[in-house]
């Protein structure tokens, strides 16, 4: 690693923040009449239901699991009766099953819930798996896999990601303001059981001065934890960007952060970890931001997992106008959904609904080669050139242009004056490369 005193900031775009809900204290949404718990809410092997129709379940009781390590168990967020196991296609297009539980509104806790006994790394990782935790920032990567290190002695840095660079979303910010101590406790747990961590960075965009202040206060007697204010320039919360800007290390092709000695965890994930070790209550609810022009009362709310979006919107005062676009996640990387009966998944951190005005899009036109996408890309890729190479299906050129490194942050498509769908092109180009790769 070359010693650089000043770490250069990666590029990005200045996106309007729309942090309308930052001062809204989290409200707890009461359990809905029914929850729909998909068996795939994570990257990895799908779970299969361990309950049958007609079974009675309690809050925090296991409803679906998988014997593979690369997976994450699913728990019931309500007490009541399993009324159906129905087919479901998740947002990534994976066909799976929903465990549908009808709530009895008693919210009885499962008797088996107790704080896990953890004395060593092995037990810690088992507890993390049992908690049902996946990366809550968006990717849904099972946390216990991330923390199972091949070379533990190499990992010396923990980065806690509270950049929250996506517009609209304030749930991570509310997590700091309301459960800040849990973040610090979570850091201590990971530091104790994982790798040889000697330095911890908490990355926060500088548009959240109160969060920075609070974290500095909470960490003032811990010299190894450094709160890192980052310039508010999307996408500072991207994993490789955060690693580079805190440590100067570059995660190259085919590498994972642990290869450069870093673990990155989302602030909400790490706070949940601390809460779980204290109470033993698995991941059954999630703090999300509900906002957008079509929502009557935008809120930050704690919602039982599996609650349908239509019920969440109802809790937020219903639709203010006919919704035309609904997003799971933020506007830069969020997924548009086709139906508001979708259930809330573990890794959702926002639900945004927009009306006609925000949905209207200018049709895309020919590239004028202005170079804005090239100047915006945090990874210095050349989206316009990738676009042309993809139109020509030029596999060699796509490889030379390193399209595989694109993280799909959306900066290129954001700045494009011709409104070209550059992110979509990059995805298709990556697909083309995968399909053209020689079969093993």
């Amino acid at each position, binding site marked *: 690693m070359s010693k650089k005193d000043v770490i250069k900031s990666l590029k990005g775009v200045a996106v309007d923040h729309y942090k309308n809900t930052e001062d809204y204290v989290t409200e707890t949404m009461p359990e809905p009449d029914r929850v729909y718990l998909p068996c795939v809410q994570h990257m990895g092997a799908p779970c299969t239901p361990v309950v049958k129709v007609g079974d009675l379940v309690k809050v925090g009781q296991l409803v679906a699991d998988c014997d593979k390590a690369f997976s994450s168990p699913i728990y019931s967020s309500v007490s009541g009766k399993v009324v159906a196991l129905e087919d479901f296609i998740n947002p990534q297009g994976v066909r799976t099953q929903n465990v549908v539980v009808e709530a009895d509104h008693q919210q009885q806790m499962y008797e088996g819930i107790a704080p896990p006994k953890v004395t060593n790394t092995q037990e810690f990782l088992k507890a993390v798996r049992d908690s049902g935790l996946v990366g809550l920032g968006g990717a849904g990567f099972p946390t216990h896999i991330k923390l199972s290190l091949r070379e533990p002695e190499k990992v010396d840095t923990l980065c806690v990601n509270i950049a929250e660079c996506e517009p609209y979303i304030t749930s991570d910010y509310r997590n700091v303001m309301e459960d800040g101590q849990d973040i610090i406790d979570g850091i201590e747990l990971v530091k104790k059981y994982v790798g040889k961590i000697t330095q911890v960075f908490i990355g926060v965009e500088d548009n959240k001065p109160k969060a920075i202040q609070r974290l500095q206060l909470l960490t003032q007697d811990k010299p190894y934890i450094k709160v890192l204010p980052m310039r508010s320039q999307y996408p500072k919360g991207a994993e490789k960007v955060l690693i580079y800007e805190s440590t100067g290390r570059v995660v*190259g*092709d085919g590498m994972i952060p642990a290869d450069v000695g870093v673990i990155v965890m989302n602030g909400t994930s790490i706070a949940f970890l601390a809460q779980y070790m204290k109470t033993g209550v698995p991941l059954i609810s999630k703090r999300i931001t509900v906002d957008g022009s079509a929502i009557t009362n935008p809120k930050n709310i704690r919602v039982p997992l599996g609650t349908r979006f239509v019920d969440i919107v109802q809790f937020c005062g219903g639709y203010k106008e006919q919704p035309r676009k609904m997003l799971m996640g933020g506007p830069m990387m969020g997924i548009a959904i086709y139906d508001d009966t979708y259930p809330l998944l573990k890794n959702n951190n926002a639900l945004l609904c927009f009306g006609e005005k925000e949905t209207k899009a200018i049709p895309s036109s020919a590239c004028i080669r202005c170079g804005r996408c090239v100047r915006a890309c945090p990874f*210095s890729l050349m989206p316009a050139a990738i676009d042309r190479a993809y139109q020509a299906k030029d596999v060699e050129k796509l*490889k030379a242009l390193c399209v595989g490194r694109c993280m799909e942050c959306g900066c290129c498509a954001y700045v494009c004056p011709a409104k070209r769908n550059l992110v*979509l092109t990059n995805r298709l180009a990556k697909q083309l490369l995968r399909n053209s790769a020689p079969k093993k």
Partner: protein
Amino acid sequence: MSQNLVIVPSPHLKDKATTSSVMLDVIIALIPTVIASAFLFGPRTLLLTAVCVGCCVAFEYLFCMVTKRESTIRDLSACVTGVLLAMNLPVSFPLWMAVIGCFVAIVIAKQLFGGIGQNFANPALVGRIVLFVSFAQYMTRWETSSGLVVASATPLGLLNQGSSELPSYLTLLFGVHGGVLGETCALTLIIGGLYLVWRKVITPTIPLVYIGCVFLFSFALGVDPLYQILSGGLMLGAIFMATDYTTSPVTEKGKAIFAVGCALITVVIRLYGSYAEGVSFAILLMNILTPHIDNLTRNVPFGGKPAKSKK
């Protein structure tokens, strides 16, 4: 409940800038120069500009109609070409010849190569060069009927003839001398350039490197460098023509190489060529090299150079 929700790929937020807003910015940046020309050369400036803009838009509209494509006149790029072409003509230029220039620029240089973003050379520049070689005597006729400027040769023409009475720097800055409409007033061109940089329509690389290198090369070859950068089409070319998106390299490194090449050719033509002026030929030649410069100056992406794949 089915609500007819719109499904589109991310990102769901887009910047306000559009192709037409970018082109509008270029037109706004050219307005001071158009006004200055009207003062310097008289009201026929406005007539010539209006004819060029009108013809460029009309040719683009007609081409799209004939080839059964969706009309692209709303992106305003044809307007920009029209204004730029007009700024490259002397005030007394016959209108019917200007129409030919517009046809060459829009139909031959731009649309036949695929329209906006696909042309290999700046359309206005091609229009100018075709008019220059076809109607040389009309393109170098500097008499005016009204306005501040009286008939005189261009500053570079005077220099070429070995004239002893050269205009002062201040005269050059305000453009009170002979020349094509848009090239004389350096001041308004610089204001337009600053506006484009401020609006982030262009990066300052090409104008700065181009003008800076012309200054350096002229100085090295023993001619008055300040006189060289303030006269002829250099300001107009460096700020408005060489920065054309489609025909200049994408990366800053590529832009710098492009601009150095432009400067070198310009100075060589001015000092040793048979023409007094070399900006338009310089930019045209570098336009042709742009795809190669682009290939040689690709960004190194974050994570280092890609692994070499076999040829």
